[in-house]
C-alpha cells in the first residue's frame, strides 16, 4: 500500500488500479442490494460477516501491521457488547451513543492492556493477552448485578430516533459502520501510523532510529483495535439479542486471529475476505453429513499451506495475472 498516488500508479498497472476501484464499487452495490435477495437467516449471516470483518480490520492493525499477537480480542468484543447493552437497556442511553461510549470505554481498556504487553512479544505476548482475556471474561461473569452473570442478558430490539431497528436496519447499520471502519483502516494504512507500525514489526531499533516511539505506537495499535472490536461487539449484542460471558471466550479470540491470517496479514481486503470465509464457508459445508467441522478444519490447513499470504494475497496475484 503506497502513500503517494502517483507512486501507486507507477507500481501498479493502471488497469489493475481501476479494476480495484470497480471491484469495491460492485461489492458495495451488491452489499446494499443483498437484503432483497436473501432470507432472514442469510441476512443474519451477512450482518455477522460485517461484524466480524470490523473486528478483523481492527485486529489487523495490531497483528498484521504492528506484528503483535492478541488472544483477548473476544473480550474487547464482549466488553463492547456488554457496555452497549447495559448503557442502552439499564441507563436508557440512545443506542448509537451507547455504541460509541461503550467503544471508547473499551478503547481505554485496550490501552491499559497494552502497557504491560509492551515488554512482551510473540508467544509470551499471546499468553499474557490470553490471561487478560480470561480476567475480563471473569469480571463480566462475576459482576452479576450489572451483567446478569452466567445467566446473560436478553435484549430488546434497539431503536434509533424513535424507530425500532429490525434485522434489515441492523444490517444496514453494520454495513455503514463497517464501510466507515474500512475507510479509516485504509487511510491509516497509507498514513504515518500505518507505516510506523510496519517498521515496528520489522525492527524496533530501526523504528527508534527514525524517531518513532515504538511503545506509543503499540499502545495506539492496541487501542484502535479494541475500539473496532468493541463497536463490533455493540452491533453483535443486538444481532443475537442475547449475550452471556460464554460467547466471548478464547475460542472466539482464536477465530478472530485466524480470520486475519487466513484473509492475509497486513491487508485490508484480507480482513473482510477472512471474516466472510469464517462465516460463510461453514454454512456451505452444512450439507456434508456429520463432518462440516472436519472439512472446515482441513480447509484452513490447505489455505495456510498453499496460500501463505492468505486468500487476499492469492486473489491479488490471480487478479494481476489476468489483468496482465
Amino acid at each position, binding site marked *: *500500500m*503506497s*502513500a*503517494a498516488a*502517483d*507512486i501507486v500508479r*507507477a*507500481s501498479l498497472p493502471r488497469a489493475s488500479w481501476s479494476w480495484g476501484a470497480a471491484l469495491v464499487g460492485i461489492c458495495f452495490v451488491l452489499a446494499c442490494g443483498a437484503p432483497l435477495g436473501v432470507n432472514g437467516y442469510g441476512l443474519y449471516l451477512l450482518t455477522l460477516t460485517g461484524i466480524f470483518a470490523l473486528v478483523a480490520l481492527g485486529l489487523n492493525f495490531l497483528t498484521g501491521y504492528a506484528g503483535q499477537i492478541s488472544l483477548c480480542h473476544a473480550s474487547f468484543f464482549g466488553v463492547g457488547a456488554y457496555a452497549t447493552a447495559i448503557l442502552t437497556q439499564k441507563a436508557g442511553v440512545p443506542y448509537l451513543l451507547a455504541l460509541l461510549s461503550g467503544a471508547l470505554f473499551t478503547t481505554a481498556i485496550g490501552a491499559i492492556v497494552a502497557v504491560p504487553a509492551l515488554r512482551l512479544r510473540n508467544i509470551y505476548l499471546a499468553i499474557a493477552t490470553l490471561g487478560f482475556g480470561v480476567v475480563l471474561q471473569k469480571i463480566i461473569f462475576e459482576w452479576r448485578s450489572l451483567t446478569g452473570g452466567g445467566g446473560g442478558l436478553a435484549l430488546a430490539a434497539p431503536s434509533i430516533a424513535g424507530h425500532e431497528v429490525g434485522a434489515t436496519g441492523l444490517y444496514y447499520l453494520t454495513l455503514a459502520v463497517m464501510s466507515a471502519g474500512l475507510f*479509516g483502516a485504509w*487511510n*491509516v494504512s*497509507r*498514513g*504515518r*501510523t500505518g*507505516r*510506523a507500525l*510496519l*517498521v515496528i514489526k*520489522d*525492527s524496533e*531499533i*530501526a*523504528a*527508534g*532510529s*527514525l*524517531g*518513532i*516511539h*515504538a511503545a506509543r505506537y503499540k499502545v*495506539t495499535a492496541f487501542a*484502535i483495535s479494541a475500539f473496532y472490536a468493541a463497536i463490533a461487539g455493540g452491533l453483535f449484542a443486538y444481532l443475537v439479542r442475547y449475550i452471556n460471558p460464554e460467547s466471548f471466550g478464547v475460542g472466539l479470540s482464536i477465530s478472530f486471529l485466524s480470520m486475519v491470517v487466513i484473509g492475509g496479514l*497486513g491487508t485490508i481486503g484480507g480482513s473482510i475476505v477472512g471474516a466472510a470465509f469464517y462465516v460463510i464457508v461453514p454454512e456451505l459445508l452444512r450439507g456434508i453429513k456429520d463432518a462440516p467441522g472436519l472439512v472446515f478444519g482441513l480447509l484452513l490447513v490447505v489455505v495456510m499451506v498453499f496460500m501463505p499470504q492468505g486468500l487476499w494475497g492469492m486473489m491479488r496475484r490471480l487478479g494481476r495475472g489476468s489483468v496482465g
Partner: protein
Amino acid sequence: MTHLAIEDVSVDFGGIHALRGVGFGLEAGSIVGLIGPNGAGKSTLLNCISGITRPTAGRVWLGDAVLSTMSSAAVARCGIGRVFQHPELVAELSVHDNLLVACHCSLHYGLFSELLRLPDVRRQERAAAKRVSTVLSRLGIADSAGARVGSLPYGHRKLVDLGRALLMNIRFLLLDEPIAGLNDAEISRLREILLALRREFGLGILVVEHNMPFVSGLCDRLVVLDLGQLIANGPPAEVLGDARVMSSYLGEALDA
C-alpha cells in the same frame, strides 16, 4: 557551531568492559573515522550515541543536551541519523514508502485526521512524497522508486537506508560499515554523496569502516579503539603511523 561530544563513556555488559572511558568530540562539518579491530567497541559506541545502549558511565552531549539519557527515538529527533551495517528496511514496502517512513517526524497530524484523511493530511503527505523524490534523485535511485525493497541489490538497499537518514533533518550522521558489500562504482558514488553532504549542509559524519584507503581518503580525523579503549585520535597520516595503532590493528589487517 554544534558539537557532538563523547565524554568518558564506559559500557559494561555483565563482566565485559565493552568501552572504557572513551572520550572525543565531533564538530559539525567534519568527517571522523572510527576504526579498530573486531570487538574493539565501535558499534557499541555508535549504539551509545544513538540511544540504543545506555552508557554505564559517562555522557554523550549534543551541544548543551545530554543524549545519553534519552530514548533512541528522542536522540533521532535531536538530529542524529544512524545508518546500520545491514540496512533495516521494510522488505514488503517500496523504496519510496521506505523513505516515506523517515518523514515520520516532519508529519504533524493526529490519528483522528489520519483516520479521515483530512485535506491537511493529504497536503502534508504530498509534501513528504516530494521530499522523498528529491532524495531519491540525489542518491541516483529515482528509477527504483516503485520497486519493492526486498527485490533490490544490496548496494541499492544501503543507499535507501542512507536516504532515510537524510530525510530526517539530521545534523550528525553515524555510519556503520557503509561500504561493506558495495562495488567500486557504488563506493565512489557514496564517497561523493558524503562529501557533498558535508559541503552543503555542514553535516558532521562519524563513520565506522574497515577499509583503510576509503577511511583515510574521506576522513579529517581518525579515532582508534582497541579493547574498548581509545588509543589514538588525530589526522589520518599521523594516526596510521602510530606504533600502537600499527601493532593492534593495522598489523592484523595486513596479516589478514
